[in-house]
Each structure stands twice: as C-alpha cells, then as structure tokens.
C-alpha cells in the first residue's frame, strides 16, 4: 500500500510537471464525498446531452455514436450516467490524468458545467451498450470474472461490473465492448497507481495483485 501511494504521488508530480503547473492537492474520493456528489448530480437531459456531445468535440475521439473508432480511447455509448459524470469531474479536477492521452479530456472538462456533464452522461446512458465478444470463457477468466480469489482478497469482476459487463450500481462502469487495449491499459494503470480516482483505491487494490496474464484474460473477456 505504501508503494502504491508513493507511485501515485510520483505520477501526480510527473503530470504536474508535464503541464508546467503546480500540483494541486485534490482529495481522494471517500464513500461520503462520492455519495454527496452523485446525490447532487443535476438531472441530465438526453437531447441537451446530444448537443453537448456535438459541441464539446466528443465524437472526434469517442466516435459519432459513442463507439470508440480507435483502440486508444474508450467507447462511451451505454455507459452508466454516474460513471460518465464522475469521470468528467475527475478529469476537471485532475484526479484522473494518467498520461498524455488524457490531455484533451482535462482541457475540455474544464470548459464544461456540471449540468453539461450530467446531460452528456444521460445521453451516453441512452445509447446502446456494446457487446462483449462471444468467445467461450477460459478457466482463468472463470476464476477472475465469476469467482474471485479470496486468498488474494480479489472480489470477482462480475460482482461490480456484471457478468456481461453491464456495470453495477452507482459509479461501477460498464465494461462490455471496450477496446481490448483500453481495458489492459486501465488495469495496468490501476495496478501501478497511475490511475487513482477510485474510492479508497478500491479498484487499485483489486488490480494490484493481478499478473499480466490475468489482466490479459480479464480484458479479453470484456472486450469487443
């Protein structure tokens, strides 16, 4: 845990250096602060959200219909509104800024109001979620996705993200149909502390003990 915090601190330092700014202290999420943020999230409007999607240039990276036209960035169609809203706030506050790929998001989220964030989140939630691939489950995937590994305090992925990758309650994102490379990178970033915008580093703690082969297996399971 100590190592992780150190790594996270180092990555914050790097990010700040890259942007030529002084690192701002942004408090990590706690269940209480997240509850408060999500309970005060404005009601989103799908039609206004479609406009935000156009005006904020979202389609340039996330696709015209919210399906990523590249392995470099995630699909947003069908994503849970709470997750999209939280991500936009995290980018705005630089809780999430893992590498140069996040630069456009940080810049654009800063231009958005909470209402616009809620609207675009509602719009994406209204779009169909992509499907995970139809490959049969391997034994390793069965262990990680369905059962978990109590010996390593690994909760099963499906417990929060669903067996089909449909997502869970609140901010647990849908994963189905994401680009494989995006899922691998995300797990790697949770594992090495570069991404630390989760509540009490919850996801980080699950990712930390994963081997490369396990990350590959989980990513392959949920990917398009």
């Amino acid at each position, binding site marked *: 845990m100590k190592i992780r915090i150190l790594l996270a601190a180092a990555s914050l330092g790097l990010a700040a250096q890259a942007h030529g700014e002084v690192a701002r202290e942004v408090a990590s999420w706690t269940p209480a602060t997240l509850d408060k943020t999500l309970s005060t999230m404005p009601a989103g409007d799908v039609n206004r959200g479609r406009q935000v999607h156009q005006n904020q240039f979202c389609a*340039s990276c996330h696709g015209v219909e919210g399906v990523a036209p590249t392995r470099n960035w995630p699909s947003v169609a069908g994503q849970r509104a709470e997750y999209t809203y939280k991500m936009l706030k995290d980018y705005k506050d630089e809780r999430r800024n893992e590498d140069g790929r996040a630069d456009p998001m940080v810049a654009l989220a800063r231009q958005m109001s909470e209402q616009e964030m809620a609207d675009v989140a509602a719009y994406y939630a209204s779009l169909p979620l992509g499907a995970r691939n139809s490959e049969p489950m391997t034994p390793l995937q069965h262990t990680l996705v369905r059962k978990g590994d109590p010996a390593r305090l690994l909760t099963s992925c499906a417990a929060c993200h669903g067996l089909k990758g449909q997502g869970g309650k609140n901010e647990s994102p849908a994963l189905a149909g994401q680009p494989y490379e995006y899922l691998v990178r995300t797990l790697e970033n949770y594992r090495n502390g570069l991404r630390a915008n989760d509540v009490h580093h919850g996801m980080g703690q699950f990712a930390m003990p994963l081997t490369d082969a396990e990350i590959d297996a989980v990513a392959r399971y949920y990917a398009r």
Partner: protein
Amino acid sequence: MKLYASLFAAGLAFATSAVQAEAQRTGEMMANTCAACHGTQGRLEALALMPLAGMEQEEFIRAMTDFRSGARPSTLMGSLATGFSEAEIKAMAEFFAAQPLK
C-alpha cells in the same frame, strides 16, 4: 566525368519512365506523411494524438471518410482527408494495418 554523365543520363531515364507511368503513390509514401503527428510507421507513445499502427483497415477507411464528410469532427483531419482518393485511403489503410503495434 564520362561515368558521371552517363549516371546522370540514367537518372533522367528513370525519371522519364516514371512520369510516363500513371501517377500512383504507394501506401507507404502517403502514410509517411502522417507520421509527423501519428508516429513513425504509426507508432505513438501515450499522447493526445492517436496511433495508427495495427489499425484495422476498415477502421482507418471509416475514419478518413467520416473526417472528410464531417460526420466525425476534427481539427484538421477533415481538410487533410479531402486530399486523398478512395484508392489512396485504401493503400494507406493497408500500410498501417501491417505495422506492428510496438
């Protein structure tokens, strides 16, 4: 000097024969012009611009045609995409699809 002159003549001969052939550009020649933003042979580190190496041909073709039509918003890709024919886009797609990711 004689050798040199004949070399020069040979060079001219090549240039002429190439002009007579139809003006077809290789996928590599065109794809190389993308590399100053999208990385040598389409390979890029973690940056705000997207890598092209290993991209599926269909994905590349759709990207270029959507940029060109304006369906997909862009800064300058919409303008650049108007500079290429369908066949040229296809040739670039083939080149990038064949490039290893790393």
